[in-house]
């Protein structure tokens, strides 16, 4: 991709070049003789797919001097989506993104998938590059999340940009009187690419000092290589205005530095979400996810836990107020516990546009850091994501 910005924006520029007139209404009624098409079938004579752009602009303040994004106001991500049906019951969704990776912008295929909705009754299949359905937040794109950052456990166990794989998944919804969905997938996830820049003395799991290569790439852990994943989710409607959701997830594969560490890893997760609608526009959400990383390396095993609890109150269709508690033990041999609390306030202008303020205090073993975000999320055009 020689010029990713131009490649992503060219279709939008072409659309923008179309004539633009002031809004006007027909005085007389028009008889609709065909059903309004669903998302993905909106192209008129040009048979265009749904094309949309979503931008996430972050202002980030932090007193953590090791944070490369501190004290900056910049785009975190611009996502362009092309969505539509390509065959009866077969749709394609392509999400291309330019996002901040460290101090540089990188273009990547965020997701590109074909979904077949009619394998057999209740069974659907997806193939492509996909945000893996693990827990509640991993599948959700940044701009859809009700928070400016992501819980530390997700970053520690899946990396900065969600657990994503190239492969396929089958999802089955049996015909039960209640909601129960089972999903299984097989994937190939990229390893971290890096080069050794030297050697250093480090402690292994037994506390012995060994010589190890030092890599210039970040030490982030995530799963990579051939992956298998599974998720089971059910829900219980407690009343007509409240619902309890349970989920269990599993992902197994290599660590992202497998060539160097020869580690195999399994991340298991449980999630519990309670939602209650207390008024026409008000809603409580209490969302909890727990993760356990079991990592087997040549000289032993390590187990690390992480979880977050997120409580949110939607006052009305404009305002959300929430708080989140994070706990994570990290994924490295040297356990590094971090606890954090975040307070979040969001104002939604319209469905796809929001401004968000977030304050977070992080307690690490050696220090405490304070962070703040001012985030703008805006959307142009019809942009849809499947339900988690």
């Amino acid at each position, binding site marked *: 991709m020689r010029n990713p910005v131009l490649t992503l924006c060219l279709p939008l520029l072409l659309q923008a070049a179309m004539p633009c007139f002031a809004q006007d209404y027909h005085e007389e009624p028009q*008889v609709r003789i065909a*059903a309004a*098409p669903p998302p993905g079938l909106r192209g008129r004579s040009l048979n265009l797919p749904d094309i949309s752009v979503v931008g996430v602009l972050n202002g980030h303040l932090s007193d953590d001097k090791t944070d490369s994004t501190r004290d900056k106001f910049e785009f975190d991500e611009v996502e362009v989506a092309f969505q539509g049906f390509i065959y009866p019951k077969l749709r394609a969704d392509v999400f291309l993104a330019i996002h901040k990776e460290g101090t540089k912008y990188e273009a990547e295929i965020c997701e590109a998938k074909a979904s077949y909705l009619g394998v057999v009754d209740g069974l659907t299949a997806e193939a492509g590059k996909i945000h893996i359905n693990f827990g509640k937040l991993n599948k959700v794109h940044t701009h859809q999340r009700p928070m400016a950052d992501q819980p530390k456990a997700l970053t520690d166990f899946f990396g900065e940009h969600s657990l994503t794989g190239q492969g396929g998944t089958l999802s089955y919804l049996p015909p039960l009187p209640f909601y129960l969905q089972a999903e299984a997938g097989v994937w190939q996830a990229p390893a971290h690419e890096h080069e050794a820049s030297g050697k250093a003395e480090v402690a292994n799991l037994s506390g012995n000092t060994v010589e190890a290569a030092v890599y210039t790439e970040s030490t982030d852990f995530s799963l990579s290589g051939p992956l298998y994943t599974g998720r089971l989710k059910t829900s219980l409607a407690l009343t007509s205005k409240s619902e309890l959701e349970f989920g269990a997830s599993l992902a197994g594969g290599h660590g992202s530095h497998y060539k160097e560490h020869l580690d195999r890893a399994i991340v298991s997760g449980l999630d519990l979400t309670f939602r209650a609608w207390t008024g026409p*526009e008000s809603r409580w959400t209490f969302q909890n996810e727990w993760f356990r990383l079991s990592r087997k390396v040549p000289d032993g095993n390590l187990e690390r836990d992480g979880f977050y609890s997120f409580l949110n109150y939607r006052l009305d269709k404009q305002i959300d107020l929430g708080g989140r508690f994070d706990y994570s033990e990290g994924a490295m041999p040297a356990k590094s516990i971090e606890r954090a609390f975040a307070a979040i306030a969001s104002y939604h202008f319209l469905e796809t546009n929001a401004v968000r303020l977030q304050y977070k205090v992080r307690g690490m073993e050696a220090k405490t850091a304070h962070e703040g975000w001012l985030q703008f999320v805006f959307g*142009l055009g019809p942009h849809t994501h499947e*339900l988690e």
Partner: protein
Amino acid sequence: MERFLLILLLTGLAFPAQAAKVRVAASNSDLGYLCERVAGDLASVESLSSGDQDPHMVDPRPSMVAKIRRADLLLRVGLDIDMWVDSLLGAGKNPRVVYGSPGYVDASVNIPLLQVPKDKVDGSMGDLHIFGNPHYWLDPANGKVMARNIRDGLCRVRPEDCPAFDANLSRLEGELGAALKRWEKTLSPYEGAGIVTYHNSWVYFARRFNLKLLGTLEPKPGVPPSPAHLDRLIKDMASGNARAILVESYFPTKGARKVAATTGAEVLVVPSSAGGQPGVKTYFDLFDAIVGSLARALASPSGAPSCSKESPCSN
């Protein structure tokens, strides 16, 4: 894993498809009611949303996915007001009710639409619907078109029962016709009267009953009222002699009460669907409540409101 698959299979077999009744999932309660009337005992109908919810803003839930999963027929308002249904259809994995299937019914088909944008639409116009104003069910004459669409869908999925559906439809159309005459007669003394509404939901209603819409509290669809806009609206209401402000039961009334305090118009908190207020259980109750409260407001000299959230029109 094998045990788990076996359990899934057995539980699936334990709840086999019911052949006796058509299972219907309706995106709103009015479609649900009309379907109950057209199908009679031959269908079991579940509404995905209740009448006290803003139809634009329904949160999809897993329990709704389960309703879609087991449905033979899906009824939706369409025209983008219930876009949340699309995400449920994706999650529901039920090929019987997806777009283009016999079990998919968009009730807006054959509806004479108002406010269909001729040209480009964007966010500067608020949450404008690109296929036209979607609040068509608030014209009771459109109830007949909706019922016919439902009948068509029922006949597609259960052709052997089509004569029964036709007979039920005929009865329902007769009742709707008689009720419409009654409602028109009730409001006929107030033809041309000016009203203001919170959202741009009442164009079909106003056209049916020859009422004049003088403005909306929202400056643009989906944009909350601003003080500057309300000041302009108050001036427009004074020149148009607006007597009533219609606010759906799920919208806030603060702005409406501010305007009412200045203009003397009455704030009418009304349902916009069956179930939108206590006692409003059917599509007929809906118009009885709206027409009744509006007639009382337009007949009475400006003063204390006759309907409110605390004292709904239907009580």
